[in-house]
């Protein structure tokens, strides 16, 4: 199994470790509910070094990135990031990701751990005709995420980066705990927070410094278990569950990352047709009306007929109710529509509700 450079830190904290797509990762420390609530009320620190980093450099880096993604990367200023995707010619997902503009002709793609190799192969298979170079730098990067209402307060004393001037989706180079990093105001929890990238060999120094700085403010180390419940409350997509190569970007309710005006990109013709003709199904959020937890792959029934399977589902620790995501036929996607989910031998009532399920109030 692969390990991040913070593996010993997790074990020292008594983390319960699991294998995650070939990586030895912490799934929980104190417990999923405790960790989830810590991020919502104070702060949490995540090791996300397993994620992938692909660097695109060259004269035609921008046109290359524009060709492979639906969002408009030409709108990115220096040290600016956007949420986007690698699309198939069918307008479906190879992966979802962040793109950072690090310089003229230099873009960093930050991709899901589960898809890093696939995404890199995808990128290099499309290089022909573009004056660019693509490098898979995932092994040299460590990445930490500090998320929560107290994140800025905790990070401020440790860095020369001017956090107060950093808006959401912007980044800056600087030192954290004396180590060179790229800090961005991004995250996967629905809270304010920062993602910290470094190629230094000792990211444990940053890990320890942040935990120490935040100790009196209630910071906790957070595992993959709470990472999933947090992102689901915030209705952030998880590749493999909510999006994949069979779901189009429009069906995934991500129309806002599709910028047809920028010009053609892989899958734009299919998406344009779909946007004109109307989508037949759409992902929606639901809550359960009876006791239970809806989990991925549980059957979903409308009018007694199975129409889909739950994509993501859990008991939301902050909202204290069972929520989930499912693709329903478009005529059934109105808020308030009731349907049923098969949970073992019972049919449990559910209702379409607005998303995100949770939105921070600051």
């Amino acid at each position, binding site marked *: 199994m692969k390990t991040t450079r913070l593996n010993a830190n997790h074990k020292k904290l008594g983390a319960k470790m699991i294998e995650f797509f070939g990586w030895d990762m912490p799934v929980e420390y104190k417990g999923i509910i405790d960790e989830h609530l810590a991020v919502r009320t104070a702060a949490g620190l995540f090791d996300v070094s397993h994620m992938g980093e692909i660097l695109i450099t060259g004269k035609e880096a921008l046109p290359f990135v524009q060709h492979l993604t639906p969002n408009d990367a030409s709108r990115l200023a220096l040290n600016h990031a956007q949420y986007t995707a690698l699309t198939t010619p069918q307008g479906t997902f190879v992966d979802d990701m962040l793109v950072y503009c690090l310089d003229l002709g230099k873009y960093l793609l930050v991709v899901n751990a589960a898809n890093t190799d696939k995404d890199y192969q995808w990128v290099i298979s499309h290089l022909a005709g573009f004056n660019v170079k693509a490098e898979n730098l995932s092994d040299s990067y460590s990445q930490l995420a500090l998320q929560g209402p107290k994140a800025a307060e905790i990070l401020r004393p440790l860095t020369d980066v001017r956090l107060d001037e950093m808006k959401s989706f912007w980044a800056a180079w600087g030192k954290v705990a004396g180590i060179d990093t790229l800090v961005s105001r991004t995250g996967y929890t629905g809270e304010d927070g920062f993602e910290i990238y470094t190629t230094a060999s000792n990211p444990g120094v940053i890990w320890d410094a942040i935990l120490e700085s935040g100790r009196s403010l209630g910071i906790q180390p957070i595992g993959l*278990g709470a990472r999933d419940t947090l992102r689901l409350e915030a209705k952030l997509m998880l590749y493999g569950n909510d999006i994949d190569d069979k779901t189009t970007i429009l069906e995934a309710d991500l129309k806002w990352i599709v910028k047809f005006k920028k010009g053609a990109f892989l899958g734009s013709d299919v998406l344009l047709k779909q946007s004109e003709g109307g989508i037949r199904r759409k992902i929606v959020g639901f809550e359960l009306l009876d006791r239970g937890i809806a989990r991925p792959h549980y059957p979903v029934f409308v009018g007694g007929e199975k129409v889909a399977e739950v994509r993501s589902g*859990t008991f939301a620790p902050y909202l204290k109710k069972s929520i989930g995501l499912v693709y329903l036929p478009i005529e059934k996607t109105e808020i308030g529509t009731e349907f049923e989910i098969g949970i073992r031998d019972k049919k449990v009532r559910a209702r379409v509700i607005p998303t995100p399920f949770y939105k921070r109030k600051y």
Partner: protein
Amino acid sequence: MYPQNFFYTKDHEWVQVKGDQALVGITEFAQKQLGDVVYVELPAVGTQLDMHQTIGSIESVKAVSEVFSPISGEVADVNSELNNSPELVNQDPHGKGWILRLKVKNKADVNSLMKATEYEKFLEGLEH
């Protein structure tokens, strides 16, 4: 760690016999595996259970686990505290986190179950 007067199953349930009644729950090992318990599905009082028959299920944030009856009997009482405080299963799995009380049908059922030391050895074996 594991009460000496309980009997244990390979599925990590425990049973404590008191006369012709028995308390049933899941073990410390099981609650740790499950993580934060959120719902406990309890059977109705009066339900007849065979040995190894499904009692119900325990839902944690990340998984659902079926609970099997360690011995045969009739459900005399369920721990309704678990409806409001399912975390009792995590906090005190051998005590306040008990799941149900059975009227014992066949006292000899416990003879095929493990005693505390055997269960502890069984757990050690699982770690390899």
